[in-house]
């Protein structure tokens, strides 16, 4: 066993755990951050998506030894740490019905965050590709895609989405 250091949502952490511990277990069990979910445990569902140095990864496939010195971000770091105000992306999911049961939501948010941070053009096709590794069993994806498009500043240049139908609902 050895100490692994990294930053988690901007704060330095050090963990004494086996290096092959899944980042998912380190977050949920050792650090008590249960926002990151486990669905399949084998890279298929994306419920465990987090950002490592800005790139979206499945935390069930990354051992802790590989995040030594990295910047790790989870859904817990999305809202404003002081006011608790939701990020525009979270707010859009809330407003547009992008979450139902919610199990996929933290992972969806992280995949969407990575996509928007990369400055990708938020077309319907590009958003679908960006969340192709995240399964949702409830929403049918349409409202998630609308929420991501709405949250992007360039959303107006994106596809004509029927936002009016849902925004006022």
């Amino acid at each position, binding site marked *: 066993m050895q100490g692994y250091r990294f930053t988690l949502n901007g704060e330095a952490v050090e963990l004494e755990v*086996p290096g*092959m511990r899944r980042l998912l277990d380190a977050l949920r069990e050792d650090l008590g951050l249960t926002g990151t979910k486990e669905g399949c445990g*084998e890279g298929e569902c994306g419920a465990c*998506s987090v950002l490592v140095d800005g*790139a979206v990864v499945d935390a069930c*496939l*990354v051992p802790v*030894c590989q995040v030594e010195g990295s910047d790790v971000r989870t859904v817990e770091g999305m809202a404003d740490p002081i006011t608790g105000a939701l990020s525009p992306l979270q707010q859009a999911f809330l407003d547009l019905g992008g979450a139902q049961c919610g199990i996929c939501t933290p992972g969806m948010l992280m995949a969407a965050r990575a*996509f928007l941070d990369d400055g990708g053009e938020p077309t319907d096709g590009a958003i679908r590709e960006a969340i192709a*590794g995240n399964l949702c069993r409830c929403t049918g994806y349409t409202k998630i895609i609308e929420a991501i498009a709405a949250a992007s500043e360039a959303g107006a240049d994106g596809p004509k989405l029927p936002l009016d139908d849902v925004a006022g609902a």
Partner: protein
Amino acid sequence: MPVEPPVTTPRSLPEAYALLSSGAYRPIAGGTDLMVQITGELGEPPERVLDVWRLEELRGIQVEDDALVVGALSTYTEIRRSALVGEWLPALAQAAGTIGAAQIQNRGTLGGNIVNASPAGDTLPVLLAADASIIVGSARGEREVAAADFWTGYRETARAADELVVQVRFPLKPARTIRFRKVGTRRAQAISKVVLALAYREDGGVWRDVRVALGSVAATPVRVPETESVLEGAAPRATVADHAAAVIGREIKPIDDVRSTAEYRRAVTGRILHRLLREEGGW
């Protein structure tokens, strides 16, 4: 609870080689195969793991002499974004773009795909079609293995237990065209039912140096020499395409498995080849 074998993170390639020559270690690169296999549900979990993810010596994509050289740790995201790959081997970028989704592409590596040696490994037919060679290294030195000699049996490779894949060399042949096709159940995150790479050089209206390589139709990725000989010296016309599609259907010996049936694979392989020939022939 998942298995957590001891792991060592070497800081340099020589240190990694020294560890590998001192005992049994399973390397971990992006972990997208290993972390799934580590549960012990699919064979014995590794006793000890060697984390190679930080070995800079295994990274980077460049053109050296007459080859595009892709480091073993290049991720699919890096391959897709590489201007050099886009210029010299777009088929590899295309293959990378069909693997998993963003989460997998950000971690999964070319070296991992090669050593994992799944017959469904999507980059492997591209290596075969491009006459690539795989550089493996150990404390004993480096050696170059032709892709055609690398996958020796179902999930078996020519790599020795103390060797790492260092890089892949794709010889640059400016006049050559390489095409890639994959058929899966859906666009993203689907393991192939059939994957095909086709290479040729046009020479006065006919094709030369034809390579047809396939994944998911045999125990290893394979080339199909009978089909290649139908296309060698021929032009991509309709009659040639009909003939080649019939021959490839006879030549491959796919199996039934959870992802598809032998009959479907046979039919779809013929059809992919036929369609590619039609596109290339412009009819």
